[in-house]
């Protein structure tokens, strides 16, 4: 090829007539001296150990500690009572667990005279590992309700069946005067959720299928899967690489499971059952809170308007106060250009768990309702 007279993209490092391929070949490495197979193997093993140790340190520093848990015969796998968990995968905070394995400062065994107690049931949005111990809406609500103790009984991945069962298990010890059921649109509709099929996470739960009437079912024992692999279970509690590795692999396998469309009649029967059960347990002093999960920036509804209507109607029928956070969340974005969901280490920014602003909004909206609810 003649020397290109057009200097536009002529590469100074490319002599005339020499193609990029020739340059690539010229860069080929010189052969290295051969090493014995044993030395190579030792180098590989040592490098693997170093890389894994580095990954362990990096994960603990930037993502979080491995979850430590205990197997409760009724509630299944719960956070180890009295332990702390640091996580940075979403938000950056340390969560301290009480003697019941709840993300809560703990309740005194002897209820002081005049103390009113509220049990808040929910999932990971209520458990709130992403914000500090004092910034979740249960603690904020407690500050707004003078003389009341708000117990955070939220647990990640819980659905209605586990929430109701948890209330029944905890009530003899906690002796709450009222309960707040904090749900997402999917809380009553996800028996098809692949997490439900994870044996070991639950010990017992109310199963709503197929007719919406809850039946207490016991799965094959708390931690059953990991009990079959005791060494893996022990490693999973000690090593971030194993904990996240197993979790990551499971997530990648399960995340694509399709969610069936909601059957609203069945959905209503599930809500009715849960409210009826809780109302019986707390003498009718129950509130229902909906945390919608819509994309505020995109302006997309989360498609749960129909389920919100069902929740509202069921609450009205049961005489239970109902709070939807849909409008308060929209107002935060509209008026303050801030988001109630999300952190700067997750994407997109308006999904994920409640951030500090979101927790404050829930506490603000919930305080007058719970105030009226308490005796």
């Amino acid at each position, binding site marked *: 090829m003649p020397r290109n007279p057009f200097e*536009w993209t002529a590469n100074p490092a490319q002599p005339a007539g020499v*193609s*990029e391929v020739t340059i690539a070949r010229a860069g080929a490495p010189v052969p290295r001296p051969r090493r014995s197979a044993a030395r190579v193997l030792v*180098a590989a093993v040592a*490098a693997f150990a170093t890389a894994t140790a580095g990954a362990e340190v990096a994960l603990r520093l930037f993502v979080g500690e491995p979850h430590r848990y205990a197997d409760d015969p009724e509630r299944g796998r719960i956070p180890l009572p009295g332990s702390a968990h640091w996580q940075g995968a979403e938000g950056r905070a340390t969560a301290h667990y009480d003697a019941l394995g709840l993300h809560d400062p703990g309740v005194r065994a002897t209820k002081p005279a005049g103390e009113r107690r509220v049990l808040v049931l929910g999932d990971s949005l209520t458990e709130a590992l992403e914000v500090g111990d004092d910034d979740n809406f249960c603690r904020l609500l407690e500050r707004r309700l003078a003389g009341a103790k708000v117990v955070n009984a939220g647990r990640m991945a819980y659905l209605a069946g586990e929430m109701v069962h948890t209330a029944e298990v905890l009530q003899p010890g906690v002796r709450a005067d009222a309960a707040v059921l904090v749900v997402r649109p999917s809380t009553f509709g996800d028996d098809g959720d692949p997490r439900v099929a994870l044996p070991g996470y639950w010990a017992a739960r109310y199963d709503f299928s197929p007719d919406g009437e809850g039946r207490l079912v016991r799965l094959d024992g708390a931690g059953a899967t990991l009990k079959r692999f005791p060494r893996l279970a022990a490693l999973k509690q000690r090593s971030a690489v194993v904990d996240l590795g197993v979790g990551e692999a499971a997530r990648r396998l399960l995340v694509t499971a399709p969610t069936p469309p909601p059957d609203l009649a069945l959905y209503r029967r599930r809500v009715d059952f849960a409210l009826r059960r809780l109302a019986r347990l707390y003498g009718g002093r129950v509130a229902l809170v909906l945390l919608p999960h819509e994309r505020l920036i995109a302006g997309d509804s989360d498609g749960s308007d129909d389920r919100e209507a069902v929740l509202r109607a069921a609450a009205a029928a049961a005489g239970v106060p109902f709070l939807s956070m849909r409008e308060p969340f929209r107002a935060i974005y509209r008026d303050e250009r801030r988001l109630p969901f999300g952190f700067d280490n997750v994407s997109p920014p308006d999904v994920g768990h409640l951030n500090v602003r979101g927790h404050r909004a829930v506490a603000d909206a919930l305080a007058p309702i719970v105030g009226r609810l308490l005796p």
Partner: protein
Amino acid sequence: MTFSSLPFALFLAVLLAAMAIARDPRARKLLLLAGGVFFYGFWNWRFLLLIGFTSVFDFALGLAIHRARGRRRKALLAVDIVVNLGLLCVFKYLNFLIGSVAGAAALLGWHPHVRTLAIVLPIGISFFVFEAMSYCIDIYRGRIAPYRNWLHFALFIFFFPRMVAGPIIRAADFLPQVRDRDIHFTVDNARRAACLFLLGLVKKVVVADRLALLVDPVFAHPSAFDSATVWAAVIGYALQIFCDFSGYTDMAIGVARLFGFELPLNFRLPYLATDLTDFWRRWHISLSSWLRDYLYVSLGGNRKGAARTYLNLLVTMLLGGLWHGASWNFVVWGGLHGVGLAAHKLVARRGGGGPLRDALGWATTMLYVCACWVFFRATSFTKAWVMLSKMAFVDAGGVRWIYRPFWPLLGAAVIWHLLRRDGEHFELPLTSYRGFLLLFASAWLVFFAAPVEAQPFIYFQF
């Protein structure tokens, strides 16, 4: 079937095993061709007819052009170019042309009832059509002789590592590698292939896919975010597209190396460029050199005076922009680069140099390149304008959200560019502790840092 997927790993394993079993060199070439056919057909088998047609048509035209003399030779080349560009126009640009004509008519007050066609864009068409066309042009120009073995030419067209997103290879570089030697597996090639593949995987999965989590929401709703977030997203996109495309190229070169083939370099640390001309010497080299050799030179290059040179640059870059996709935003992106190249040529005539000028040139170039990326990535001119307004701190308000992994990824990219300024080949010494350490550390990085939902390669759409 992307390089970072499980089906590709299975496909590669089966193909390598089959080639290892095959004794006859010709059988190995046939197996590689069959692998290419399967790879392309896996995406959409119907388009095998299209790429198969290209492999037969250009092979025959190459022979005919070589035999012909005088005007017949030129006419045959014209036929080749018209047919190849015709294919590109039908599959890639027809709806765009119809829509643009209808839009222009609407501006004049005429509202014709037009219907667009439901045409699926064959993956990689922009790449294999350019390669086939350059083969015939090179024969016409007397730079190469036509190949008389169709199997060799078909391997050129169906060579799967670079089939869907380049790099664009030339027959003069590739065909001698098929003709002159046997395809066989060597440990040294495998080691070098593994290094390149791993490097590409880290670039793609760890850097590009992570940055997509910042870039996508901000470009989708730029008005919701403040200026700092928009700036982060634009810089993030500049890194994302580099790591996505150069990562794919590294993997493609690595896979080709596995079979003993050398593919051309496609990137040479483009964000170290101190001017726009330098940038195009470093960015998508196989395309920019193609445009230079087959378009810019054909238009007259810089042989017809300064004004014509600037015009040629502008036309070349406009068409280069259009090559990326049937959309006006790519045309604008190309046009802006054409204007920038012409402006640099004008300024460069005044001479001068020195570190201060280099630093100023680097900053100006990066600013200009990033501003151009806004048009490349934005889905509408309205959004592009909002992005640019935010970047200029006009209407700077909005949600402040700078995705935290952005900072370490930006830092890593800067360090990578500074460490590899000499452009030497990346290689892991997979017999030493250091080499294995990098290998395993990269593997952990890919496993833990990969987002749950993998992003498609950006250049697959072109």
